[in-house]
Structure formats: structure tokens, C-alpha cells
């Protein structure tokens, strides 16, 4: 009997696909080895900054807002959030790759100044992995068992908490607040409109 869902196998296939996106210079190892391939560090010095002066000032201001210590730097583990605050949508993995795959200790303690952050931001912006309304709807359609425009809230919860870059219960609750109808179903087009309207 074929296994219902072999989570391991697709995971290996998905990772290289995701990792390939943000690195314009380096080529990730595509071989489906048992352990996820270690993607080589991104060469940031090769990245050309294409932001205008005004944009750079905007980013600098946002960067400063996240500096809680006062040394004009931010910690590695804040980089992903800063990028998101600036309107980008990287996965945690993409950010880690750009940072050179730091250890957990480095993530918490190493700090980086604004000039070093800029090429990272440029890299993410350059990555072709942009998702629009249709992509999200397509993504959710996957869970639409009956093809009627709704997904089961419960199923979505399980998926979000066990797959990909897992979310915890509190995060999921916040996301789904007020979205499920009395049958526990979510109209996903409306859902996507909701999440994109922020």
C-alpha cells in the first residue's frame, strides 16, 4: 500500500526549490540526499544596491526602530522581522541562508549594522518568489476537499502547525480569529482578501 503522505520525501524536494529562489549568485545543491542539502552562503558583496536615496533613508529609519541596544545594529534574529516590516515576505529559511546559516547562538547574539543589512534586503527583493492574491488562493484551494470554495478550519490548523515553518497555537489562533463559520469552515477567497488587506 502506498503511504498516504510521505512527508519526508516531498520535504526534500521542496527545500531546494525554496532555497534556490533568494540566491542570485550561488547555486544550491539540488541532489536529493537524505539530509537536507546544506546551501552555500550567499555572496553579498556581489549584490548591487538598486535603492534610491529616499528608500535607503526609509529603510534606515525602520532599522533604527528595531535597535533596542543603541549601538546602531540589530541582532541576527531580528533581520527577518525587519524585512517583513518593510513589506517583504521571506521565509525564515531564506533569511538564514542569507545570513550564512548561523548557529542558534549566533542568531541570538551576533549583531549587524545597516550597511551590511542593505545587500541582504536587496537580495530578498530581487528574489522572484513573490506571491500574489492568486497564489494564496491556489495554495488554499489545495485543502478544498469538496471544491466548494471552503476549507476546514481544523485541517488548516493541523497543516499550519505541522508543515513548513511551523506556527504555534497562539499564532494560529490569532490568524484565524473570526474567520471560521459555524461549521468550522473558512471561505478561502475571503480569507485571502482579509489577510492581504492589512
Amino acid at each position: 500500500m502506498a503511504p498516504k503522505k510521505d512527508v519526508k520525501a516531498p520535504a526534500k524536494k521542496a527545500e531546494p526549490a525554496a532555497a534556490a529562489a533568494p540566491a542570485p549568485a550561488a547555486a544550491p545543491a539540488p541532489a536529493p540526499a537524505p539530509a537536507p542539502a546544506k546551501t552555500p552562503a550567499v555572496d553579498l558583496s556581489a549584490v548591487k544596491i538598486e535603492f534610491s536615496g529616499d528608500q535607503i533613508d526609509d529603510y534606515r529609519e525602520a532599522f533604527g526602530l528595531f535597535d533596542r541596544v543603541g549601538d546602531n545594529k540589530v541582532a541576527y534574529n531580528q533581520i527577518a522581522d525587519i524585512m517583513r516590516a518593510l513589506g517583504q515576505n521571506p521565509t525564515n529559511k531564506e533569511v538564514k541562508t542569507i545570513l550564512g546559516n548561523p548557529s542558534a547562538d549566533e542568531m541570538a547574539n551576533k549583531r549587524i549594522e545597516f550597511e551590511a543589512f542593505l545587500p541582504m534586503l536587496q537580495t530578498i527583493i530581487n528574489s522572484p518568489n513573490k506571491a500574489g492574491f492568486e497564489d494564496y488562493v491556489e495554495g488554499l484551494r489545495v485543502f478544498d476537499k469538496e471544491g466548494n470554495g471552503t476549507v476546514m478550519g481544523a485541517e488548516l490548523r493541523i497543516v499550519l502547525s505541522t508543515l513548513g515553518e511551523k506556527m504555534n497555537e497562539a499564532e494560529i489562533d490569532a490568524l484565524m480569529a473570526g474567520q471560521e463559520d459555524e461549521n468550522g469552515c473558512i471561505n478561502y477567497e475571503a480569507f485571502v482578501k482579509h489577510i492581504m488587506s492589512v
Partner: protein
Amino acid sequence: MGCGVTKSDQFHKQSGKAVTTIKAAVLIQRWYRQYVARTEMRRRYTWHIFQSIEYSGEQAQIKLYNFLGYLMDNFTPSSNERNLISHIFRENEVCRDAEWERYFSYENIEVPDIYSGPHLTFPLTVEQAFGLVEAFRNKKQLHSRYVLQLLLETWKLLRMLPNISRISTCHSKEITICGDLHGQLEDLLLIFYKNGMPSLENPYVFNGDFVDRGRDSIEILLILFSFLILYPGDVHLNRGNHEDHIVNLRYGFTKEVLTKYKLHGKRILKLLQKIFSWLPLATVIDQKVLVLHGGISDTTDLSILTRLDRHTYISALRPPKKRHMSSATASIDSDMDDDIWSANRMSQRRASLTYPKPIGTKECFHNRSLQDFSERIRANIEALEMCKRQVHAHAQAQDQAQAQAQTNSPISSSDVDSVSLSCESIRSYTAKDEWRQILDLLWSDPMTQDGCIPNEVRGGGCYWGPDITEDFLLRHNLQLIIRSHECKQDGYEFCHNRKVLTLFSASNYYDVGSNRGAYVKMGPDLVPLVFQYQASNMTRELTVRQSVGRTERSALKVLREQLFAHKSDLMSAFKKFDSDNTGFVPLNDWASAVESVMHLDLPWRMLRCQLVTCKTTSDGMIDYYEWFSELAIKGHKDTDHIDQSLLETLYRHRSTLETIFRMVDTDNSGFITIEDFRQTWKLLSVYLKMEITDEAISDIAVTIDSNQDGSIDIDEFMEAFRLTDKKSRLERGRSMFMVTATDLTKLEGDPNI
């Protein structure tokens, strides 16, 4: 079971689908995290806005106070002006205890039969204390007779307490420590609900700032004092920077008491002045944990704090004065050359206001002397500037230690002139040193960098770094400092390697949903266990996004008002960048100009899209004239003829203006005479160093005194210029201004809200 091919097909189909599933999951997760990050960003700058404005308000109050102190010390104005200014220095009326007792006597106060609030008998019992809490929960008010009685008992008790309370924990007795409450009764009730009322088995430490800003400051005080009286060994109160009548004038407590107790409010406030000065300064738990309101500085010394006479510091903002104000005594730095100072001080002393001109009518005498007053102030401020320059030059020539002494002045170094002149030392060095100990204790904030610098943002105390904490803890053999004084989003925050804990117990402080409150429980292991909460039903129903949105809108509204109030300054700043007078400035310049005027250290670029709704040109230029018309606050129809810049000034300084009004209104009637109004205005114009003609003042006075009876209703005045934000008043009910029932009905019908 199928054959290999089918299996493989199915497998591929399944795994193909699985890939899409995971992609979908990752997509949603990524989106969600972006949403969280952006919300967090909005929350952060909203916080920034509220906090900047709050602290700059504190700074303004201190500046005003110093200014008035400077006037008191350096001029011998005619008796009328002196009366005007001396109201705020009521603490200088030193009376004997017997006189106090007579003044605060409650025996003559009758409680009418219709009174439905709680009745107190002394000695107080636990049931009565519980009854009091219950009554306040049901919005009852305690009769002034009982208030005075309770306060007197409290005063008697507090006088016996040491400056620093020393308490111990034991296994059956954990101590609960609470931070700022700021008149928010709901939070105190929530704490009691979650943690139980104070008792012999349930000791509490309340770490200051019980009053101001919230609506129920007096109720909170009465509850805390009741439990203090019942359990003096198990309830401990520390003084906060808001337990100070100077600060109360601006931040609402004075107004609250005078509103709730129209007949005896003044007496109650006077008694509270004494009680505040008798509140202990700090608490030490098990000789290891120090609990105090603000913080420490590099010179904080517990042995000095233990020894000093705390009750002589009625306000932490002013050192104790001797009965008679003697001639020029040592300046703040007695090490500094007396020559530089004394010559100038002598000439200032001589500059009295007894004007040699013939005295005309009473009115013109007033006007003339205050005019002269203001001219002399201006002249002396220039002399002072010169002095300051000389002093600084001198300081540079001196050796390190003396230069050090000058920069470590108690109030921010930029106010060296006002501080050094308002500080009259009695025992020279020691008195100033003691005063500084208290000021630092109540006003300081921690910072992340090492060192100790004056707290220029608040205007009092200092910023102290982790190295200072280390040193202090080592010297005094302590392991933890618990303090309050700063609002924190989660109600608490550790810093300095977890050696300093900030605790804030007023939830929703800036606005509904802005922050949680917290309290701490501690047993003999001295490990603080934090409990968080958030008062108000409304917050539970709001999602994070909604509550951030609400607070953000509130903050932006406040910010817009501030911007409007600084319109002229902003206009000049823009003009500097726009030398060709095109009416446009680039975005970058807009941000710099705004920061240079507002000094709030906010992320203006980020806020721009919220603050500037008129379109920017394709190359990012902002039409600032259009922007101002966007910001404009409508004046009352009767005030159209009044100069716009005057209106702006009124708006910007409305808090200061109201504070001065309340100072002038000695009988707390809510009315001041036209004459007092004119004098107040002149005082303000001197303070602000701006020219206001007599005509302009008369114009305003006539406009306001609609019934022409020679007196002005303070609230009506503030109202006339739309200086109050009606909508938020109705919504929040928590405001700086009085609202009577008729006002509310009037407002509700107002289509302009």
C-alpha cells in the same frame, strides 16, 4: 495493493499534492509572519509617540516650576505679583503641629442624612476597609469628614516610619509588589481580585505613583491608606514622583480632588501634601532586594537616604527652604568662584520693582509693574546668559573634579542657570546632596549604555547604566532593584542583566489595549514571579490588530495636535529648506525640519504616510502649505478675529496655561478675575519670551467673559478655543477637564463631533 507502477503513480500523485500542500502552508506562514512584524512595527512607533509626548509634558512642568522659582528668588515684586506666584509655594507656610491639627479638624464637618456612602469609625476595622473597597467599586464617594479623619490617622502613622522600610519574607508569607497605578481603580481591584486583599498573611509593597492621570486617584489613596492603617507591618508604600503637589497641578490629581470635594478639597490637598512628604522613600526586602520608584544614580547612597529628614521635601523638585530668604548664598557649586556669581546676584537683588513713577489708578499700576517685571527678566536673562558663558569658560579652566561637579547638577545641565539660582542651600553642600539623592530616587530611568547622565527628557533625575547598577548592588550588598516609573507593554521588563526589574501596574495606560499591567510575588528565594493582567472588558473583544489600530489612531491624533500647535516654528523650519519659496520640500527635508522643531525623536519618514494625506508630487516633494491646512484645528466662531499665532500659542501651552490658572484660583472656585487673567497672561508671555500686547489680552478677556461680570470660567476659557478634544472626552471619560452633566448633553447633540 496494486502493482509497482500503480504504486509509483499513486505515490507521485500523492507526493505531488503533498508538495503543493507544503508550499501552501509555507506561503500562509510567511504571510502571517510578515503581518506580525508590521503590526509590531506600528505598535512600536505608536508607543514611541505616546511616551515622547508624556515625557516632554513632564519636562515642561519642571521648566515652568523652575522658572517660577527663579522669579521668586530673584525679584522682590510688589505684593500682588508675589501673591500670584507664591501660591505654588504654599509649602513654605511652616506651622506648628497644633495649628495643623486645628486646620485639618474634621469634627465640625457634618455628614448629612442623605449621604449614602460608607461611614467610618476609628480605629478602623477590616470590615470597614473591605466596605470601602466595595463602595468605591460601586462608584460611591467617601464623605470629606471621613476622608480627613482617615488622612489624619495616616499622617500620624507615616510620621513614625523610617525613610527606608526593611521587611522580610518567610515561607508562608510571600510579598506582592505593585508598580504605578495612576488613579486606575480598575487595575487595583483586579490585583485584589487575583491576589487577595492585603492582610497579615498577604503583605504588599506599593511602589509609588498612585495618583494623577486616572480618574480615581483619591479612591486609590484611601484604599491604600486604610490597609496601611490596618496592617502597618504588612503594607508598605513608597513615594513616587507623582506624590508631589507640583506635578499634581498639571496631571490631574489636584483637579480631581477639587472637583469631587468642592467644599473641603483645598484642605484635603494640603493634608495630602504633608502625607506625601512623609511617605517612605524605599523598601528593602530581606536585605537583598531594593524596591523604589524611579531608580538610582552614580551617587545614590542608602546611608544618606536613611539619615535625611524626608518630610522637609514637600516637593522633590525643590530643596527645603529656610523661613527667611536671605541674601545671595552659595550657588550650586560652592567650589566655583563666588566672585562670578555674587556680583551679579547683588545687582539682581537691587533690581526691585518699586517703580519710582507716580502711581496712577490701581489697574495701570499693575500693568506697569508687571511690564517692568518682564523687561527686567529679559535683561537679567541676558545677564545670566553672559554669566553662564563666563562660568563655562571658567569651568573648562578648572580641573576635572570641579567640571564634573558642574555637569552633575541635579536638574539637566542645560538648565544650569535656573537651577543654580533657584537652589538656596542651607547647609550648603549637604543639603544639595540630600536633595539630589531624593530627586534621583524618584525620577531616574535606566539606560543600556554604561555611565550616568542627566535625564534631560523628563527634566529630573538621571539615566543610569548597567555599570552603575553593578557598582551599587556590590556596595550595598544587594542583588536586585525593583522599580517602576516607566510604562512597559507587558507590564514589566528586566534590564541590566536582569538586575533591574521595571514593574508597571496601570494597564491600558496610553489607551485601551496599549499595555498590560503586572505585579510580582516574591518568597524567601527572592525570585520574582510576574503576574500580568489587563483591565477593561473592551480589550478582550478586540483582536491584536484592532487594538493596535485603535491606539495608533489615538496616537496620531495627539501627534497631529502637537504638530498644529507648533505651526509657526514648523513653517520657519520649512522655509529654511525652501529658499526659493516654491512651497515644496523634499521628503527628507520635511522629516529633518519636523524633528528639529518637535524634538520627539520619532520615525517621521515612517509616519509620513499617516500624517501627510495630501498628495506628494512624483519626485517626492511635499506641499507644506497644503499640509498645514489639513492639520488646522477649527476655532470657535467667536474667536475668528483673534490672531492665528496667538491661537496657536494658546493651543500649544494649554496645559501650562491651565496649570497657572489653577495656581491663581486660590479659592478653587473655578473662576478667576479678569485682572488675575491679565496678570496670568503676562506671566505666561514672559515665560514664553513672547510679545503680547495689552490689546490682544483685553480682546481675549472680553470674548471669554461673556456675561461681563468681571470673572472668567476657566473651563469655558479652555473650551472657547476648542482646546479640549470633545470626542475623546466622551469616549474615554478620562480627561484633564471638568465635565458636568449639562456639558455632556450639550456635547452629545453637537453635530461637529
